[in-house]
C-alpha cells in the first residue's frame, strides 16, 4: 500500500499496525486462494507468499503509487502490498470478468499498472532486466519515481541478475533490488547450488551498496527499506536489500514438500512475521482485541473478494482475440464464428 508521506518515521506503532493489516490481507488472500485452487476454482499453479509477507509489505510501504515494482512468479503479496485491489486480483485468479488483467494472465501474470505494479512474471530474472529499463525510462522522462524489483534467492544464479546489477550501476539508476531469500528454489535448497557468501557479496562485487535484514521482522524491513529508498530517491543510485525469510508453504500450492526434512516447516513457522508483528504491537500498547479484529477484517475482506469473484461471469471467448497487437489480426477461427 503506498504511503505518500515519506517523512513519516518508521517503527511508530500506528504505522506498524497498518503494515500488520496489509500482512493479514496477504495471508488471507493466500490461504483462501489455496482453498479455491483445491476446490477447482483456480487453474494453473499458484505460488504463495505465506511467511514472506513482511518483505513486500515493509518495502512497498515506502513506495509511492507512481513508483514501479516488478515482481516474479510469487507476485500476490507484492501486488497487495503495492495497493492492488484483492477483489480484482481474486477475479483474475478465477479467470473472471473484472480480473486485473482481464482474466488473460491469471496468478503468474498478476499486475496492476494503475498502482505501479508492472507485473508478476513467469520467467525468472526477467523482471530484473525490465526493471533497469523502467528506471532508465524514468530518467529519460525526468519523472520523480523509482523502481523496485523483487527477486528470489534461487534466481540469483541466473545470468540476467548480474547483467542487471552491472547495468544499474553503470547508469546510476534509481532502483532498489530486493532479494527474498526463502532458502528454497522450488524443491532445491538454494545453498546447495549457490557458491560463495551469497547475494549480498555478489551485489557488492558490482560496487552496489547491499544490506541484509531479517525478512520476517516487518519493523526491520520497513526501517531499512525507508532508508534505502530515501537514498535511491535522493539520487544515490542502485541499492540492494537482502531479506532472510522462509518459504512456509510448498513451491506451488500442490507441492507436497517431500524433499523437506520433517519438522522443519513447523519449526521455522514459529518465526513467521505476522505472529511476530502481533507480539510487537501488543508490547507496544495495542490491545489483543484490536489485533484480532484487524485480522478478522482482512479475512472478511478476502472472503468477500472470493464471493464477488465467484459471482462474476467468465469472459466472453471472443475477448481472446483482443489486445494481441495493432498490426495483423490473430486469424481467429472462421468455422465456428470466432471474433471478427
Amino acid at each position, binding site marked *: 500500500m503506498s504511503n505518500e508521506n515519506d517523512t513519516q518515521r518508521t517503527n511508530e506503532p500506528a504505522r506498524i499496525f497498518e503494515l500488520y493489516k496489509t500482512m493479514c490481507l496477504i495471508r488471507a488472500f493466500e490461504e483462501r486462494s489455496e482453498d479455491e485452487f483445491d476446490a477447482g476454482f483456480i487453474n494453473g499453479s499458484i505460488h504463495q507468499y505465506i511467511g514472506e509477507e513482511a518483505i513486500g509489505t515493509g518495502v512497498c510501504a515506502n513506495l509511492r503509487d507512481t513508483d514501479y515494482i516488478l515482481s516474479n512468479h510469487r507476485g500476490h503479496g507484492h501486488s497487495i502490498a503495492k495497493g492492488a485491489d484483492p477483489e480484482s486480483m481474486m477475479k483474475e485468479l478465477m479467470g473472471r470478468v473484472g480480473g486485473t488483467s482481464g482474466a488473460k494472465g491469471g496468478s503468474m*501474470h498478476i499486475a496492476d499498472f494503475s498502482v505501479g505494479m508492472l507485473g508478476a512474471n513467469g520467467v525468472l530474472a526477467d523482471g530484473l532486466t525490465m526493471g533497469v529499463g523502467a528506471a532508465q525510462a524514468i530518467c529519460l522522462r525526468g519523472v520523480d519515481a523509482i523502481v523496485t524489483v523483487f527477486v528470489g534467492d534461487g534466481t540469483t544464479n541466473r545470468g540476467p541478475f548480474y547483467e542487471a546489477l552491472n547495468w544499474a550501476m553503470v547508469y546510476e539508476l534509481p532502483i532498489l533490488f530486493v532479494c527474498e531469500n526463502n532458502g528454497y528454489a522450488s524443491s532445491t535448497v538454494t545453498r546447495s547450488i549457490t557458491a560463495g557468501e551469497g547475494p549480498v557479496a555478489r551485489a557488492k562485487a558490482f560496487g552496489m551498496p547491499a544490506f541484509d535484514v531479517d525478512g520476517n521482522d516487518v519493523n526491520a524491513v520497513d526501517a531499512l527499506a525507508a532508508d534505502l529508498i530515501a537514498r535511491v530517491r535522493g539520487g544515490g543510485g542502485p541499492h540492494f536489500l537482502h531479506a532472510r525469510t522462509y518459504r512456509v508453504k510448498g513451491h506451488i500450492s500442490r507441492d507436497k514438500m517431500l524433499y523437506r526434512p520433517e519438522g522443519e516447516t513447523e519449526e521455522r513457522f514459529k518465526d513467521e512475521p505476522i505472529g511476530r508483528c502481533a507480539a510487537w504491537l501488543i508490547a507496544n500498547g495495542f490491545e489483543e482485541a484490536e489485533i484480532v479484529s484487524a485480522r478478522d477484517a482482512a479475512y472478511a475482506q478476502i472472503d468477500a473478494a472470493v464471493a464477488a469473484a465467484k459471482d462474476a461471469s467468465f469472459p466472453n471467448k471472443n475477448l481472446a482475440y483482443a489486445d*494481441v497487437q495493432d498490426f495483423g489480426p490473430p486469424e481467429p477461427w472462421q468455422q465456428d464464428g470466432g471474433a471478427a
Partner: protein
Amino acid sequence: MTEMTFADAVREGLAEELRRDPLVWALGEDLSTAHGGTSANQYVGLIDEFGPKRIVNTPISENTIMGAAVGAAVAGTRPVADLRMADFGMCAVDELVNQAAKIRYMFGGQARVPLVVRQAIGVRKGAAAQHSQSTEAWYVHTPGLVVVAPGTPADGRGLLKSAIRADDPVVYMEHKDLWLASGDVPDDEGVVPIGVAKTVREGSDLTIVSWSKMARLCEEVADTLAGDGVSVDVIDLRTLWPWDKDAVYASVCKTGRLLVAQEAVQVGGFAAEIATDVTENCFDALKTHARRIGAPRMPVPYAEPMENEFRVTPERIIARARELLAA
C-alpha cells in the same frame, strides 16, 4: 506390454540408458529433489541409483544447463539436459542453435555433439502465455538439430533411447498434458527409430498428419469420421526432423487428401512446411489442395473460455476435414 504413464515410461527409458552407458547423464533444475507436477517427476528416484554426478541438480542457470551440456557432449559424454518447458528453453536458444547445432559443422567434423535437450511443449490448462508454447517449428528450421515429439508412453521411452544414442543434438519435445497419460509400453528394449512415423489409424479417404498430443486428438477425429463413413489415415510423425516423407507421400498417394494438424500457432508453423513439401512432391496425387490447422496467432490466454479459443480441438479438426472432403 505394461501399461504405464508417459512420465513413468520415459523415466524407465532414461534409467535403462543410464544403466547401459556410463557416459549418459542428466542435468537440470530440481532433478534430484523432484516433486510432483513438473517434468522433474520423471527423475524421481534416479538419484538413488545413479548418484549426484549423473543426476545433476543444477542452479537456475538455463544458459549453462544448455551450454554445459554442449561442452560435455563435445568432451565425450552424452548429456540429457532438461529445460523443463520450451518457454524456458528460450533462455538457452543461443547455446542450442549457435553452438550445439553448429559445432560439428563449423569445426569441419572434428567434434560431435551427442546431447538430448528436453523442452516440454503444449497448453496445459491455466498455464497461460509463458508456460504453454509449442516452438517445434523453430528447431525444425535450424540446421544441425534433430527434433522429436513423441505422443505416447511407448514412443516417449523409445525415442528418448534413440535420442540418447544419436550422435546429433536432439531436441526432445514432450507434451505437458501427456505426462500423466497412460499407454502400453513394450517389455523389451522398445527403441523407436528417429525419422520413422507411425500410422495410428488406417484409411483411404483422407490423410491426417500430426504429432505429439495432437496425434491423439486426430485418432478421435478419425473415429468420429469413421461414423460418417469416412476412412482416415492418421500419421503420427513422432520425429519432426527428419520427418518421414515416405510414409506421408505414400498415404497421400493413396488418399489424395491431406490435412496437417498442429497445436502450435498456425502462422509460420511446421504444418506449412509439410503442406508445401507434399504439394511440391505429390501434386498430381492430390484431389484438392492440402489444408492445415493450427492455433490463432495469439499468446495463450488464462481464463478457460478464452483458452479454448486457442485450442485446436477435435471439433475444429473435424470441421476442417469436412471442408476438405467436400472440396
